[in-house]
């Protein structure tokens, strides 16, 4: 009766086990990472336009919603689900950002309160 590893050099056992463990870990970790990865895109961009409100063309699951703008100028960002607002933020820091995911499909929205700086602003969010 022979051992299971009979004929295999003993020095290869540990490296083989480590490689197998690493491969298994990658197979477990990578697919959820790929599934969670979201693509960022710009849904509005412009200059000045105080009082303007902008939104994505459709609803989707979002990872975050933000607007890059001149520091010191105030903006709103939020998600819109039907008629409900979530993750509402208002401030003058740059970027003005809702860092949380939308939980359900939503429009991402941004609104310029007083940015007449002449600096080009950009509203960004993600899609799956």
């Amino acid at each position: 009766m022979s051992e299971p590893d009979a004929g295999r050099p003993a020095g290869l056992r540990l490296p083989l086990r480590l490689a197998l463990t690493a491969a298994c870990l990658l197979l477990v970790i990578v697919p959820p990472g790929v599934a969670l990865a979201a693509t960022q895109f710009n849904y509005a961009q412009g200059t000045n336009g105080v009082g303007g409100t902008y939104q994505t063309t459709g609803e989707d699951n979002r990872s975050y919603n933000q607007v890059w703008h001149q520091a010191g100028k105030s903006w709103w960002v939020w998600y819109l689900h039907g008629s409900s607002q979530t993750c509402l933020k208002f401030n003058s820091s740059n970027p003005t950002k809702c860092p949380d995911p939308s939980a359900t499909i939503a429009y991402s929205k941004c609104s310029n309160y007083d940015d007449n700086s002449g600096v080009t602003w950009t509203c960004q969010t993600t899609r799956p």
Partner: protein
Amino acid sequence: MKQPFRRTSFLLAFSAAMGILLATGVVAFAGPTNSTDSRAAVPTRASDVFPGFDRARTAGDALSTDAEAVLTSFSPSAPRPALDPGQIERTESRRVDGPSGQVAYLVPTVKEQVCFVLTASNDSGCSDGSRLATDGVELLLSDADGLGVGEPTVLTGFTVPGVVSIQVSTADGRLSDAAIARGVFYATVTSAPTGLDVKFADGTDRGIVIPSPPKT
């Protein structure tokens, strides 16, 4: 005896001097012709007006791992150079323990802005310090589910040293005081906030309007 040459020279010189004076005045009054901005003065260094930078740095001011991850993400992700707050100077960071469990991590940047993370309200961003210099406060408003419904609205941010109180007015007519500690303020309200009344140690105060958000 008349001296027409001298009189003419005097008039020409006088007119030229007046012209130069008027031109200087007009240029000073008009400002740059391409300017669309009437901002108040921006401090040379935002760290001159943000809390924490008026004392020596200690080991306790080191950035937390989570805060550093957020703060280092700003500069590389800015969509254009004009909006880039600049790389953070992590060895100059400060931690400020505000009221209601609000902890602020602040760090200056190579572009003289200050980037910050506020842990309790999950707010972050970068600032040139202009709001603090103008209003005495830098306001950050958050609401998980829209104003006046469900979860309370959080009003937080930073103050300059001379601020002694901040009163929040809300749509239901109530007034409530924000807690202030070490240059950080924090308040929650259940009705839509409409304004802040900021009182200074010298007896002056400043009203700040909080606008209504767009309806949908």
